[in-house]
C-alpha cells in the first residue's frame, strides 16, 4: 500500500458517533474533521470526555462510527469486511496504550514479538527481531524480563517497540506519557519521535500532557466532540535522531 497522493495518512470528514439511544443517547463526536500527514506527529488534545479516545478508536478501526467519511492510509475502511479490518489493523497499525497493556506472563521480547507472531511469523524469528529492536531502544539487558519487573518507562519502551516492530504505517498512541514522570515522559516522546516518525508513516498522539506538545507537528484541539482548533506550532525542538543522541535517552533513565 502506498502513501496517498494528497500526503494524508488519515482523513476524517464530519465523523459522528453516538452511544445509546433515547434519553440515554450520548453524542461523543459531533462532526469531526481531522487529518494527519505522513511523516508527522499529530497531537489530539482536549479535556477529558471531549471524544479523543472515541476518535482514535474509530480511526484505528476498533469502533464503528455513526456517520461521516473516513480514510485511513488511503483506504476506505467502510469497504472492508470485519475480518479485512482486523487484517488491515494487524498489518498497518501500531498501538501504544496509557496502561501499556503488556502481557504480564510474557517477557519483554515476547511481548514485542506478539504482533509478528499474530501475523504468522515463527516465534523464533519474531523474538529475534524483537530482541534487535529492544536493543536498539536501550533495553538490550532486559530482553527476558517480565513486565512487572520493569519500571514504568521501561514498560512504555517495550510498548513502543511492540507498536513499531511490524513497521506499521499508522501509530496510535493514547496518553503515552500519562503514567510516567516528566523525565520518563520526555524520554518516551524522544524515542517515539525518533523511531516512529518516518516518511510514509503517521503518528497520532492523544495526550493531556502539555509538557510534550513541542514534539507535535500539528495539534488538534477537541472540545465537546468537535475539533475546535488546529495549530501547527513552531517546533522549538526537532525530534532527536537516535544516531545523533544515543545517550540522551539512556541518561534520562540512568
Amino acid at each position, binding site marked *: 500500500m502506498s502513501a496517498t497522493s494528497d500526503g494524508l495518512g488519515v482523513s476524517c470528514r464530519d465523523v459522528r458517533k453516538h452511544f445509546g439511544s433515547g434519553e440515554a443517547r450520548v453524542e461523543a463526536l459531533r462532526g469531526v474533521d481531522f487529518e494527519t500527514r505522513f511523516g508527522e506527529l499529530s497531537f489530539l488534545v482536549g479535556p477529558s470526555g471531549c471524544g479523543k*479516545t*472515541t476518535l*482514535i*478508536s474509530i480511526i*484505528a478501526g*476498533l*469502533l464503528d462510527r455513526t456517520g461521516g467519511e473516513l480514510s485511513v492510509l488511503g483506504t476506505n475502511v467502510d469497504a472492508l469486511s470485519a*475480518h479485512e479490518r*482486523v*487484517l488491515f*489493523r*494487524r*498489518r498497518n*497499525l501500531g*498501538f501504544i*496504550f*496509557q*496502561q501499556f*497493556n503488556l*502481557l*504480564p*506472563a*510474557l517477557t519483554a521480547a*515476547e511481548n514485542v514479538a*506478539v*504482533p509478528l*507472531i*499474530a*501475523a504468522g511469523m515463527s*516465534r523464533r524469528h519474531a523474538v529475534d527481531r524483537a530482541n534487535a529492536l529492544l536493543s536498539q531502544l536501550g533495553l538490550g539487558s532486559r530482553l527476558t524480563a517480565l513486565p512487572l519487573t520493569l519500571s514504568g518507562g521501561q514498560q512504555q519502551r517495550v510498548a513502543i517497540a*511492540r507498536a513499531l516492530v511490524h513497521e506499521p504505517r499508522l501509530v496510535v498512541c*493514547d496518553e503515552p506519557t500519562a503514567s510516567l514522570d516528566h523525565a520518563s515522559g520526555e524520554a518516551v516522546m524522544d524515542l517515539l519521535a525518533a523511531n516512529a516518525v518516518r516518511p510514509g508513516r503517521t503518528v497520532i498522539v492523544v495526550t493531556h500532557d502539555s509538557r510534550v506538545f513541542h514534539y507535535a507537528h500539528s495539534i488538534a484541539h477537541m472540545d465537546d466532540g468537535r475539533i475546535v482548533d488546529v495549530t501547527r506550532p513552531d517546533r522549538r525542538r526537532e525530534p532527536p535522531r537516535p544516531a545523533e543522541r544515543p545517550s540522551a535517552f539512556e541518561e534520562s533513565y540512568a
Partner: protein
Amino acid sequence: MNFVALRMLTGDRAKYFGLVFAIAFCTFLLENQTTIFANIMKRTASQILDVTDAEVWVMDPQTEYWEQTKPLKDTDLTRVRGVPGVRWAVRLFKGNPVARTLDGKFAVSFLIGIDDATLAGAPRKMLLGSWDRLREPDSVIIDQAGYILLFPGEPLALDRTLEMNDHRVTIVGISDVPAPFASLPVMHTRYSEAINFLGRERTQLSFIIARPDAEVSPAALTTRIHERTGLRARTTEEFMWDCIRYYLQHTGIPVNFGITIAVALIVGAVVAGQTFYLFTIENLKQFGALKAIGVTNVRLIAMILLQAFTAGTLGFSLGTGMAATFFEIFLHKLATRGIVLMWQCVALTGACIFFVVIVASVLSIRRVLVLEPAAVFRG
C-alpha cells in the same frame, strides 16, 4: 499464538494451580463416587459372574434377581436339556445356611451347590486346595473373606471343620471369589450336599445353568428355552443387569449415591467452570489488547479453547491419578476387594469434565467476542 495462550494460562501460578486443582478435585470426587457405586452394584451380581462355565441361566418366571429364587422342579432340568441348541445344562442350588465353627462363631453364608457330576460352576480361582476335592463327602470350599470372618486372626488352613444344620463339613479349599453384595462367606459344595446342609424341601432347584451349542448364541438360546419351557432364561450378562436393575429400583442406594454424585458434579462443575470463567474475565484486558493488535476472533477462540483443554486435561489427569491412588491405598483390603477404578467411570467423568470445560469455554469466549477492542483505550 499457542505459546501466548499457554503462558497466559500459567503466568499467574496461583490462579493456574487453583484452576487445575479445582478440576482435579471435581474429577476425583466424580470418579470416586461413581466407581464405588458401580462396584457395589456389580457386587449384586458377583456370584453370577463368577460362574464362568455357563452362559445361560434358567429360573422360575417370577425370579427377578439372584437373591430371590423360587425353586424349579427337578423335571425342569430335563425339559431344558431337551431344548435344541442346549449343549449341556446342569443344576445350581443357592441357599443361606448358618455356618458355625467349633468355637461357636457363626455366620449366615451363601451356599452354592454345583452339579455333582461335572462340578460346573465351581470357583476357578483357588488360594488353597483344589475344587476337585469337592467330590469328597461333606466338603465345602469357602472364600477367603468368609474364612477370615469365621476364623479371625488365624492362618488359612484346609481340613478345618464347620457345622451346618447339624452336619459336620470339612473345608477342602479356600477360594478367591468376587465379594458378594452382603459381606457373607461364600461356600461351594456339591448340589446333593447343599440340599443336605439346608434341609430338604419339596422343590430345591434354584437355577439351571446351561451352555449353548457352538452355532447357537446365548441370547438365541434363552429365547428358545423360554418358548419351549415357559421358564425364564437369561444370558449371564442379562441376569447381571437384572440384579443391578433390581437394586437400583428397590433400594435407596442409587438415591444416596446419586445425590452425592450430583453434588460432586454440581460443586465441581461450578467451581471449575467459574474458576476458568473468572480467569478469562480477569484477562479480558489482555484479550482486548490482542484484539486491538489484530489477533482475529478465530485465533482468540482457539487460544481460549487451548487454555481450557490444557487446564482440563491436566486437572482430569491429576484427579484420575488421585482417584487411582485412593483406591489403591484405601480400598486394597479384603473387605473392599474388587472395588477398583473402573474405566467406564473414568470415561464418564472425562465426559463430564469435557462438558464443564466446554460450557466454561463458551461463556468465556462469548465475553471475549463481545469485548470491544476499543475498551483497551479506557484504561
